[in-house]
């Protein structure tokens, strides 16, 4: 009945399509990918190694969801923040304000319109948090850790580079999660596309990142969450 740590993280189907954790995924990937240089000649390991971030980063994003139960695509816009070593915050601004943040092992979520607030342990045993576990690994540049759960491959062309992450050992009834991160050669990622096991898709268009030792907005949002 022993469950290795990795398998504990990887509960049925890695529900990456949970909004909170896709957001965190997005934040982490966007923040670390801006530093990718000379991808055309890089391997997966060297690209991931460069994903480690050293300064605070801010990226504007547009999120699009194409779901089978929606009659139309759904869109949202907002801002992603990340501050090493362990802070990530996503602020959705349209159509509704939602804020989600992770600091160390605490996860915060706040939706002012419905006065919904959650604070919980970042529980590695919770399948909803599986993506967070993975992308915390990305922040540390640990490709070995990622390869326990995903097959990683990189494709280079003159126009762009693509990093493909495919879920290993998915539920036998469904295909696994697929994540494609793309960017121009020697530039940061400009898009992330996530295909969920049930065929729904999410994509993120990313603005070029800003980086700064300190973002006032990030700290004020985080403090507001913590003092809720």
């Amino acid at each position, binding site marked *: *009945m*022993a*469950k*290795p*740590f990795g398998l*504990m993280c990887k*509960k049925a*189907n890695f*529900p990456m*399509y*949970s*909004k*909170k*954790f896709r957001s965190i995924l997005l934040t982490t990937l966007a923040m670390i990918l801006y530093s990718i240089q000379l991808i055309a000649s890089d391997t997966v390991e060297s690209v991931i190694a460069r994903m480690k971030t050293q300064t605070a980063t801010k990226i504007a994003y547009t999120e699009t*969801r194409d*779901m*089978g*139960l*929606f*009659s*139309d695509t*759904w869109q949202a816009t907002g801002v992603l923040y990340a501050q090493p070593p362990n802070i990530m915050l996503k602020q959705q601004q349209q159509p509704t304000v939602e804020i989600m943040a992770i600091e160390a*092992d605490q996860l915060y*979520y706040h939706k002012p319109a*419905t006065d919904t607030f959650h*604070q*919980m*342990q*970042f*529980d*590695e*045993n*919770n*399948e*909803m948090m599986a993506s967070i576990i993975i992308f915390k690994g990305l922040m540390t540049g640990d490709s070995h850790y990622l390869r326990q759960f995903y097959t990683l491959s990189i494709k280079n062309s003159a126009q762009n580079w693509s990093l493909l992450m495919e879920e290993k050992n998915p539920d036998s009834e469904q295909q696994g999660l697929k994540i494609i991160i793309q960017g121009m050669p020697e530039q940061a990622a400009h898009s992330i596309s996530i295909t969920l096991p*049930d065929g*729904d898709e999410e994509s993120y268009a990313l603005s070029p990142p800003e980086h700064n030792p300190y973002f006032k907005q990030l700290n004020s949002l985080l403090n507001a969450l913590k003092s809720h």
Partner: protein
Amino acid sequence: MRPSFASLFFIIILPLLIGLAFFTVQFKTDMSAFLITGENAEEILLASEIQSGTLSRRYILSIDAGQNQVVAPRFIETWLAKIKTIPEVNSLWRANEQKNTLKSLSTLYTKHATQLYSREPEKTLAQIFTQSALSQRAEALKQALLSPQASVIKKIAVQDPLLLSLNGFKSFADQFKKTALQQTGQYANFILVTDPSGMDIEKQRIIQAEIKRYFSENTKNLAYTLEMTGVPIFAAATQTMIQTDIQQVSLLSTIALILLFLVLFRSFKVLFWVSSLLLFVISVALLTTQLIFGSVHGMTIAIGSTLIGICIDYPIHAIVHAQGSEPQHRLQSIKTIFPSLAMGALTTLIGYIALGISGYPGFQQVAIYASTGIISSLLLTRYLFPYLITGKVKKVNTFKFIIIWSKFCQSFRPYLVAVVILLSAFSVIKLDNLQWMQDLQQLTPELDYLKLNDKKIRERLVSMEPGRFILVSGKTPELALQYSEQLYPLLEHLKQSKALDDYFGLYPWILSQQQQQKNQAFLAKSLTAEHQIHWQAALKQQKLSVKRLGDLDRYSHSVKTLTPQEILSSPIAPLINNQLIINAQQTLLIIWLGKHNPEALKLALKDREHIQYFSQRDLLNRMAIDYQNQAEITLLSGLALILCLLSWRYKSILLAIKTLSPAVISALLILALWASTGEAISFLHLVGFLLAVAICVDYGIFYQENRSGNISLTYQAMAASMLTSALVFGCLLIAQTSTLQTLAKVVTLGIILGFLLCPILIKPRPFIKP
């Protein structure tokens, strides 16, 4: 039979008997089985479940990270993974774990959405099927599909677009929120269920040790503490306590008896034969008890170890009277005193038999154990022992005090009788001040630390009172569910009137078949084309797929109802199987209660058939009073029977009363002493009195009959047997179990007093043939 044959026979048979007893007897230590029973079938079934069913196999584990600290998720994950590898651990989950609930929602409950959405379908559907309510529902669906729980919501929505299956779980979600808030931080709580029963102490000890070992291995650099509670914890602690008591008491009483023997009789050979005789007696008693009951309870052995002090009386009397005679006259000496021994044994037997038929669950075993021992000892003393005492003539060492006391009593008897009468009168008056123990939980103060720990741990979970709940019974699960559903409106009313904080029944997990069918029929009837139009319009407004979510006709299709058996075979079974007890004859359903006003609840539930407010404390208190009343009747009946027996034997009631008087008056004086000190007495004290009287009556008989014709010798023999009995019962004072301490005080004091009163109250006469 030559002495050598007797010795040989005894030496061969004895080890065989001991071996048989050692290897075949099954021991049990469940205190509740020894002391507690129920008044009615429901309580008995519940007691049985607590002893060996699902309720007995659960632990609550609580990890405390310390103030302002948080239990690290990584630690929890590693430790849980290891705990699950322990053999015979059935399941383990966090107290606030929603994983199985969410999964069950989409796999099990969605298809029964039309049956389980409400306890009051008329009211619920009237609220749902309005245009504005449907619009709100569509908006909520949209938000849910954009939420972190989207993966689960999607699976539910394609079958149940109105999310009716989530209706019943709203209040449940609030409770989970409460525990989730409690869980974030200092404490992490888990429920662990084992395969073996909680009363299987050996296996539970192994599991407990492994849990602690894994915890210790994983917290070397962490300042976490682990606390555990549950039936197995109490059971293991009780068994440890009883085992320790048996070992310590047996060791001490053995050493004390050996020393006493050597002082009195100055013979290792006599010590050897008497010890062998006692081993024989105990082996026979164990095997007989095992044969009749299938096992022997630890408390039987603990209380029964006092049997040594009783059974040793017969060979002691035999030795005292026989050792002073030539070997060829010893058999005759023993034959002469045997009728007194037999009468003494009979009166003692009456005491134990009265105990056995009193109704106390565990004392029936004690009665069989003791009776077998007494009869065996008596017969061995008469028919075998004479052939074992083959040594030279030896005078038994006498205590000077015995001689002085005896002479003193003879010299001042009238005055001493007057003093005794005065003291007795005073005692009778004092009886009014006797305080009776009202709370049976006071019988086990040594377990108070576990009870406090249990309360502390449970307060960290959803606030549920573990010892008080509502018990619903029905012949079938369907009937039990129907009765409980009739109760929910009343409980809601009690909540509104603040008499009850919260309650935890079986809804939303299951409803009766009757209610499920009613829900289904009502929904099909309520759903109209207009509702469908409003719903589709709402979906369009929210930009949700009308094609996949707009068809409400699916709610009109009839579906097979969900049964309790299906639930109990599903992943959520561990969440409810401590509330549903199904056996062939009846089903019990438990509704847990939060903080509440017990009197208000009792009043509200009064006269409701099949429904009972159950309070463990009240049950124990009621039992305390019942046992007390029974003990009084048993004691008086036992005394009456002994009086009749003695009257028949002596053909004189007056003589019988005189013979009985030392025993009765010693009991009276002790009662007066407790009345003066204010010590609360329980039925156990009365049981102790019964034993003391049964033993003291022997002294009265021996003194009265004086079959040897030598009152000094008779009193010396009585002194020897009194000392051994007092020593053995006195050793119980070192026991941790307060039950045994109580018996020690009562019996030891009783028999010493009874012995001292004999020369005062009974005038020594020459030997009288009946």
